[in-house]
C-alpha cells in the first residue's frame, strides 16, 4: 500500500506560515493540501489540469495544484484561498465577487479568485479583455463569466487599502 511506495517530507510556506508534512511521493499537491493540511478550499474538478478549480498561487504564479506533486512544492511559497479572508472580513477581491454575484455554486470560485489576484498584482487596472483572457483557463459552469469579469475589473478592489494584505 501507500506506505511501501516511499514517503517524503515536504517543507514549505503556506499562507505566510512555514509548514511541513509527510506524504507518499506520488501524492499530488492538491491531494496533500486537502488531505494532509486540511485546506479544502481548493477543489478538484478534473484532476488533469483542465478545469482550474484547484488553482493556487505558488511563488506568486497561478498553478494547477493537481498537476504538481507535493514534493515539487518543497521550499515554495504557497497561497490558498484560506489565506485571503481574515478577521471575519472578506478580502476586497472576494467582496467584489460577492457584490457582482460573481459566483453561484462556488466550486470554481477559489481558483477564480486566486487567478484574478495574480492578474491584479501584475496588472492593477486590467481591461475586460485582459480579465477575460486571465480566467480563460478556469472553467465556470454557472455564471457565464460576465459577472466574474465585472468583479475583477471593479476599481474599488484595487483602491481598497486592504488589497495588499491578501
Amino acid at each position: 500500500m501507500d506506505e511501501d511506495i516511499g514517503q517524503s517530507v515536504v517543507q514549505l510556506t503556506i499562507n505566510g506560515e512555514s509548514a511541513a508534512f509527510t506524504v507518499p511521493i506520488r501524492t499530488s499537491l492538491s491531494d496533500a493540501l486537502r488531505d494532509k493540511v486540511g485546506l479544502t478550499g481548493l477543489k478538484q474538478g478534473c484532476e488533469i489540469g483542465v478545469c482550474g478549480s484547484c488553482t493556487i498561487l505558488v511563488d506568486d504564479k497561478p498553478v494547477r495544484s493537481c498537476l504538481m506533486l507535493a514534493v515539487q512544492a518543497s521550499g515554495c511559497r504557497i497561497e490558498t484561498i484560506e489565506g485571503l479572508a481574515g478577521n471575519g472580513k472578506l478580502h476586497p477581491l472576494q467582496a467584489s465577487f460577492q457584490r457582482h454575484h460573481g459566483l453561484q455554486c462556488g466550486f470554481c470560485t477559489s481558483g477564480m479568485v486566486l487567478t484574478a489576484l495574480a492578474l491584479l498584482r501584475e496588472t492593477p487596472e486590467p481591461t475586460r479583455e485582459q480579465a477575460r483572457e486571465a480566467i480563460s483557463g478556469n472553467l465556470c459552469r454557472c455564471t457565464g463569466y460576465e459577472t466574474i469579469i465585472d468583479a475583477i475589473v471593479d476599481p474599488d478592489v484595487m483602491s481598497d487599502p486592504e488589497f495588499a494584505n491578501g
Partner: protein
Amino acid sequence: MLSGRAAYIADLPFQDVLYVAILRSPYAHAKITGIDVTAAAGHAGVVKVWTGADVLPKCAGLMARMDLPGFVPTIQPILAHDIVRFVGEAVAVVVANSQAVAEDALELIDVDYDELPVVASIESAMAAEALANEAVPANLVYQGHRCQDDVDGDFASAAYVASGRFINNRVSASPLEPRGCVARYEWTNGQLTVWSATQMPSFLKTMLAIHLAFPEQRIEVITPQVGGGFGQKAHVHPEEALVCLLAIELGRPVRWIEDRRENLLSATHAKHQINDMAIAVDGNGRFLAMRNRSSTDGGAYNCLPWTHLVESHVGASTLTGPYRIAHFNDESLSLVTNKCPIGAYRGVGWSAGHIAREILIDRAARRLGLSPFEIRRRNLVDQNDYPFTTPTGLVIREGTFVQTLDRLEQMVSYPSFRERQASALASGKLLGLGLCIFNEVSGVGTRALSFLHIPVTTHDTATVRVEPTGKITVTTPLVAAGQGHLTTFAQVAADAFGVPLDDVTILAGTTRNTHGFGTVASRGAVFGAGTIGRAAEAVKVKIRRLAAHLLQTGVDQVTLSEGRVHLIGHPDKGMPLADLAGAAYFADATHPPDFDPALEATAAFDPADVVLANGGHAAIVEIDIETCMVRVEEMFAVEDCGRMINPMIVEGQIRGGVAQAIGMTLLEELVHDGEGQLVTTTLMDYLLPTSIDVPDIKIAHLETPSDLVPGGVKGMGESAMISAPAAILGAVNDALALVDASLEDFPASPQRIFDALERAAAKNAIPV
C-alpha cells in the same frame, strides 16, 4: 463559499472513513463470464470487494417506471451481474483505507467478458436486430403521441413546407463538482445518515427506504454545499444505494467521490434526440400545421425518476410553443441503446425541438422574403387570443410574446444588422442572426407534470416560525446548488412579515426538515415562495388576531410592516413584532379566548395550474471560413418570469444558461464510436465553454406576475437552455444560408461546418 470554508461533499471530514473505487465496464454490451477478485481482496489496505452477485440479494436494482399504458420499465442493477449494457456501467467495487489503494486494487480485478451485439444508435435500436436490454422488446421503452390531427390537407395546400431531420447529439450537464456521497450506519440505534450532493434529498431518502427495504424514519439525507447540479444531480444514482449498502455492511463511514472520467462515463447523459419536423406555411407566412417525429437515444436503462420520457416525450408538450399552429401531428419514441442512461439536464427535452422549430421558421422566412421578426410576429399568440389553447392542451392565459419579439428586434438593431451582415460577406465573413421565442412550463408541480404526461405527484412543504424575540426561522426541504435560493427564500419571508432580511434564517440541507420533491425543473423560487408564503400567512393570521385583541380592533384592521404590528395606515398605533411574539409565548393573560399560541406553521404548496414563464433569445454569430469555427459575437435575452424576487439572481440564471447553450450547440459532444465506446472521457475532449467563448449578454426584463403563486413569482432557471440553443443554431444557419449551406446535425463543430460548406459548394457546382 468565497472564503473557501463552505463544505462540499468531498470536503467533509469523517472519522475512520473508508474510500470507494468502482470498476466500470469497458464494453457497451457483454456477458460477464467470470470475475476474479482474489488479488484485489488480498491487497494490503483493502477492506471489501463486492461484485454484482454480492449486491443482488440486498437490492435488485433501481426500478424506474411511468404509469402510462405501454411503458416498459427497467431495472438498473447497483452493480452489473451477468450482463453489462453500457461502457461505464459499474461492475465491481473496492473499499479501502485510502482512495489511492482502492484505485490500485481495481486493477487487480480480473473480469472475463463475452461481447454481445451493440446497439449504438437510434437507427440500430429501431432496426431491433439486436436488443440493447433484453427487458425491452424491440428496444422501445415508450411510443406516444400528443396530437394526431389530420395535417395532410394543410401540407397539401401550403405555399411552402419547411422540413428537416435535426440530430441533437449527447451532452453532459457536467457540473464542475462531480457526484459524490458518503454514508454512515450507526448500529446502536439503526440510524443511516447519508450525505449526498443531490438536488432531491427527500426523494432520495424515500427511494433508499424502498429500494434497500430500510426503515425510512431512520434515514437522514444531508445535503452539503453542492457544486452545481443542472439536473444531473436530480436523480437517484446506483452509487448512492451502493455506498449505503457498504456502510451498513461495514459499520464504518463509506465515501464515494467520483472523478471526471466516471462522471462523463456514468452520470446521466442528456439531450440525445432526432427530430423529423415539418411546418406548413401559407403565402402570407402563417403557420398552418406542424408535423414531428422525435426519437430519443435513451441509453440502457430508465433513470430514476424521470425515465427516458424526459427527452422527446416531454419535448412534444410545448413543441408548437407560443405560436398559433392550429394542427399538430406528432409521435415520440424512446429507445434503449447500449449507452449511459439519458436523464434530466436544464431545459430537458425542450431544447432539441425548439432548435428544429426555430430553424425551420427562419427557413420559411427566407423563402417568403420576410424578416425573422415579421414571420414570428404574424404567428405569435397575443393578448387578444387569451385564453389560447395549444394543440397539446396548454392554456396560455398570459405572456408577453409579441413584446418580447419587439424588444429583441430593438436590441439587435435589426436593419443595421442586415447591413453589417452584407458588408461582412463582401469581405469574406459569414455573420448570422438567430432567435427563439419560448414559453417555459416552470415551477413544475403535479399539474405541470400531468400536462407533460409525466404522472408524478410532487409534495412540497415549509415551516415558518416566529421566535419569541420576533425573529423568523424557516425550514425548507429545497436545497441550493448555486441558484441563490436561500437568499431568495429569506426575502420571501422577510417580505411576508415586514422585517429586515437579516431577521430571517433559512434552515435547509437535511431531511429532518419538512418534506419536498426537490430543487429541479425551475421549481425552487416557485415552491419556496409558495410554501413559505402560505406558512407565513398561517402564522400571520394568529399574529393579527392577537394584535387585534390587544389593540381592541378588528383583525382586518391590522398589518405588519417595518418590524411592527400596527393599525393599517398608522404605524405608530401598534407594537414591535418582538413584543407581540413575546406576548404570544410568555404572557397568557394577553391572549384572546381559545387562542392557539403556536407561532409556527407548516404548509404545502402545489400550483393549481401550469405556471407559464416566457421570453426569448437572439444570437449573432460569426463563422470563420478558414477555420470553420463559430464565434458567438452577441447574445440577447428577454425574460418574463413574473415578479422578480431578486433580479441579480434571475440574470445569473440567464447568463449561466446561455453559457451552457453555447457549449451544447458549438462545443460539447459525448462521442461514441460504432461499438458504443465513449471516446470523450476528459474535459480535454469534452469541451466546456470558457470565458473566451461566452460574450457579455444583454438582458431585458418584462414582468407579468403569476396569480397562481404567492408573490406573483414564476420559475425561470431552465429558460436559457430551452431557447438560447435554438437562437444560436438559428444564427449559424442564417450565416450558412449566405452561401446556400445549412446544418441540421449538432453541435456545430468546425468539422460539421466544413462539411456543410463542402456540400453547398458541391451542390452549387453542378448546374441544375
